[in-house]
């Protein structure tokens, strides 16, 4: 490879082709590297709409946990890598009391809850030793105020995070569940007009998720087809408003949400009580007409099924629903088609972390037609988030 080559007359095209092939090969190598790494998308946080009606302490805590790792981006720094105090490794209520008694503490908080709230919205009030901004001698916190951009948690969400921080180590949750009044902070998904028919009421509040009514529904709660033979209208009303006062034999307390009364309008409650008190064995009278409130009127088979079986009583689907079960908004990203199908047919085989087993009725498969099941599975498999 010495002077000999230089005398060769080489065709420019040959060199061009060779250098192009070389360059292209290199580029493809880089492309290959990127395609070999785990492929994941970073979703922008979706404006989660909290269904205030169906909130329980458990679901509120679960919301807090999902905010901690998700929208709140807390775990980005608060982990065991030493960037920020390892919140998951501490009992935060004890830590809060400890910090309140520290002479460096200059804030106005009086108890753990108010301390946690304060440290979320104004992190600079008390900076844990060693975690301040570099050069500030622990007087300035590197943490952003959580209710401001870029994180922007709402008041309800901040309370949910506090609830989670309290609950994760077995401490009492002292934050109060958001009342309906504060719904201005979070755009409510509740329809503003009262439901017109009993069927709409039943669909809207997802009664069929647990109760068999007029031929269809779950078996988690007692069937209500002949409830009038068991209970007086007054007892029925009480069972809706205060479900745990009297429990039908063979069923357990604490499963039915205790706040339906807050959600329902008086008219709706009365219509429902009247209906249940006077209902007959309506086996043939199939509730086909689905309401136009919760499910969008698309004629979509899946959405009909969701409304019919009251999935949204416990699951968030298409932006609305309860928190008793895991949100299904991005279930398509978590589970494949077969897993989704299994979770409907045999809900207790695989349980999403953080949720109890045995809550979802195991008999949906018997109630649904194959077409409905297929439509539902396909619909859910497409739910991959925002």
């Amino acid at each position, binding site marked *: 490879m010495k002077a000999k080559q230089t005398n060769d007359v080489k065709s420019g095209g040959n060199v061009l082709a060779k250098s192009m092939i070389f360059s292209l090969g290199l580029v493809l190598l880089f492309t290959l590297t990127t395609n070999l790494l785990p492929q994941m998308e970073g979703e922008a946080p979706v404006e989660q709409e909290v269904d205030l009606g169906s909130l329980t302490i458990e679901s509120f805590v679960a919301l807090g946990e999902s905010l901690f790792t998700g929208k709140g981006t807390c775990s980005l720094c608060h982990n065991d890598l030493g960037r920020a105090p390892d919140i998951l490794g501490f009992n935060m209520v004890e830590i809060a009391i400890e910090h309140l008694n520290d002479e460096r503490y200059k804030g106005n908080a009086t108890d753990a809850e108010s301390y946690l709230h304060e440290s979320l919205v104004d992190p600079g009030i008390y900076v844990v030793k060693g975690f301040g901004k*570099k*050069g500030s001698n622990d007087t300035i916190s590197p943490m952003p105020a959580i209710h401001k951009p870029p994180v922007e948690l709402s008041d309800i969400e901040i309370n949910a995070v506090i609830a989670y921080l309290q609950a994760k180590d077995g401490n009492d949750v002292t934050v109060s569940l958001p009342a309906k009044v504060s719904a201005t902070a979070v755009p409510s998904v509740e329809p503003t007009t009262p439901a017109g028919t009993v069927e709409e009421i039943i669909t809207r509040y997802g009664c069929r998720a647990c109760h068999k009514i007029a031929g269809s529904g779950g078996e988690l709660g007692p069937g209500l087809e002949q409830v009038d033979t068991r209970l007086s209208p007054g007892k029925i009303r009480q069972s809706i408003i205060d479900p745990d006062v009297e429990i039908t034999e063979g069923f357990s307390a604490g499963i039915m949400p205790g706040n339906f009364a807050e959600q329902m309008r008086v008219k709706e409650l009365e219509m429902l009580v009247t209906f249940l008190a006077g209902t007959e064995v309506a086996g043939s009278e199939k509730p086909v007409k689905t309401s136009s409130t919760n499910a969008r009127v698309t004629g979509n088979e899946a959405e009909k099924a969701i409304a019919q079986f009251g999935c949204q009583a416990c699951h968030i689907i298409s932006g609305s629903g309860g928190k008793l079960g895991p949100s299904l908004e991005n279930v398509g990203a978590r589970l494949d088609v077969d897993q989704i199908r299994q979770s409907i047919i045999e809900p207790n085989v695989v349980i999403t972390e953080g949720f109890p087993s045995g809550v979802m009725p195991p008999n949906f498969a018997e109630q649904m037609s194959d077409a409905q099941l297929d439509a539902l599975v396909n619909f859910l498999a497409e739910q991959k988030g925002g």
Partner: protein
Amino acid sequence: MTTNLQIWLAAFTIAFLYFYGLDHFIMSMQGLPINMDFTPAQ
């Protein structure tokens, strides 16, 4: 005259002192002590 060994010793001493000083300077600039005794600094 200086021997080879002396030259090497001198060179390494200079380099070592320089870097030792540098490390101290840089760490102190950031307000961090430098623990040469290998005690984990927290």
